């Protein structure tokens, strides 16, 4: 299926930051049925990330503050090459930077390894000066997107943070700058405290919530973006089973990304893409696109 300029093997995509730091890990997720894979977010210089604890399972999902650890674009080209050599699913390179020049430097730096698409991470809620700190400003998002779109010859997706008052204004800024798709959502800003010691659990003290707890937030963001935009929306957040993915698609997603649920089942992609097919058959549809945004018509 073709979505936003790339040919997906099925509508389930590995989300950024999950099993995405090496080419071998990305290829493994493709073997496990991912229709495409997104790399860990890659930046301009090597970064070791925040101190541990950096990811903890809570009652309702997961909280993490990895701090964008990555070997930099020069260190990562080799891994993209390895992944592409081992799989035929498309590879989407997630990148971050502090401003348009840095984003563009990283994108250009990775071009030689031939990613099929870029995903701009303007949405990490816990890395100072990066991610969400740029992704809450529509003008900055416009400038960054336009600059990367101009520098590369593959589709550019922009991944948004839900930690804003109006996600559609950021989505419109990215769309008007040439984004081929909008990806929503990154993690929801959050915190967990150990009541026995009084310490915030994450090394970074606060971080981002993912998993089942964020699904209703993601569904609403996807619903609103579908309404506001012409480009496809990719739904992410709390998807753990076919029903969750279908809900996201009915809200307006053309495809879904899956992150935290890899914890419970590394074969999750096969399970969900099969489940979507079963649903389509049961209700007499042929393609995922037949049900994308269907709930908007139910008034």
């Amino acid at each position: 299926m073709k979505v936003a300029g790339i040919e997906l093997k099925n509508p389930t995509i590995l989300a950024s930051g999950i099993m995405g730091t090496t080419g071998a890990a990305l290829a493994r997720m493709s073997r496990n049925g991912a229709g495409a894979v997104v790399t860990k977010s890659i930046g301009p210089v090597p970064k070791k990330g925040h101190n541990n604890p950096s990811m903890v399972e809570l009652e309702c999902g997961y909280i993490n503050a990895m701090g964008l650890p990555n070997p930099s674009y020069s260190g990562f080209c080799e891994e993209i090459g390895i992944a592409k050599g081992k799989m035929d699913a498309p590879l989407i390179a997630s990148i971050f930077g502090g401003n348009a020049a840095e984003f563009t430097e990283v994108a250009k730096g990775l071009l030689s390894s031939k990613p099929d698409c870029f995903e701009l991470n303007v949405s990490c809620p816990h890395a100072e000066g990066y991610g969400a700190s740029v992704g809450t400003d529509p003008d900055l998002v416009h400038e960054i997107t336009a600059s990367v779109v101009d520098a590369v010859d593959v589709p550019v997706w922009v991944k948004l943070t839900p930690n804003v008052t109006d996600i559609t204004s950021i989505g419109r800024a990215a769309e008007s700058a040439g984004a081929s798709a909008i990806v929503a959502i990154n993690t929801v800003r959050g915190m967990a405290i150990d009541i026995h010691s009084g310490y915030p659990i994450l090394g970074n003290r606060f971080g981002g919530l993912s998993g089942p707890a964020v699904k209703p937030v993601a569904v609403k963001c996807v619903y609103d973006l579908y309404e506001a935009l012409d480009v496809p929306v990719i739904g992410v957040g709390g998807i753990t089973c076919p029903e969750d993915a279908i809900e996201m698609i009915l809200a307006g997603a053309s495809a879904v990304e899956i992150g935290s649920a890899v914890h419970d089942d590394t074969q999750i992609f096969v399970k969900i893409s099969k489940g979507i097919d079963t649903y389509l058959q049961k209700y007499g549809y042929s393609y995922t696109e037949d049900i994308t945004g269907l709930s908007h018509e139910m008034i």
Partner: protein
Amino acid sequence: MRPIHSKITEIVEESPNVRTFFFDTQFDEAIPGQFVMVWVHGTDEVPMTLSGKNSITVQKVGDATSRMFELGIGDHMGLRGPFGRGFTIPGNGENVLFIAGGVGAAPIAPLADIVKARGIEGRTILGSRCCDELLFRERFACGRVDITTDDGSEGRGGFVTDQLAETDTSDYDRIYVCGPEIMMYKVFEILKARNAHVKAEFSLHRYFKCGIGVCGACSMDPDGLCVCRDGPVFNGGELEGSEFGHYERDSSGRKCHF
């Protein structure tokens, strides 16, 4: 799971740089070789093998472990686990060989406890840099113990591999190995030459962030197996042709060659 707030109930000084911490939290279901993420409040959270149902045995090497050495009985750490895949428990009647170097004796000792309790015989090759650092030798008293020290201060002068080279491994059904990666790799090569690596299990170390198989920090080439989830214990057959013995990755994901 959130970290379990665990009180230190006893501290045993095993050697100048190694201490065993006992907690009021008991991991009864833990399998030897499984690990816990140990949160030292305000410092870091690091993986440690369970050296017993309620203990970890720590070598002081850096920030988090040095901070642990400042803690006393009654102080607390946060424990998450047990995580990962442990060793295969030997069956009754199986002959076992333990090969442990330095603090690598920590994951192996609980297996020796099981073997001893069942009255099976288990042979051990136990190595360390010097006699002060030989760990848990009384726990390995379930059969013959060959000791090697790098400086020759006790037992045979040299490495566990020197002893292994002269040991007939054909009688053993299972071989359990843990120690520094270079040591483990040399053991792997000796066993492989005898086609005995497939009956050996190795407990590996990589840099862990999440510890639960999500972030990919500990993923190994070329299959993308996670040491924290698919391991830390791997069969020798699974390690053939892998990065094992060649390189690991630092916290940013860059390769560091051994």
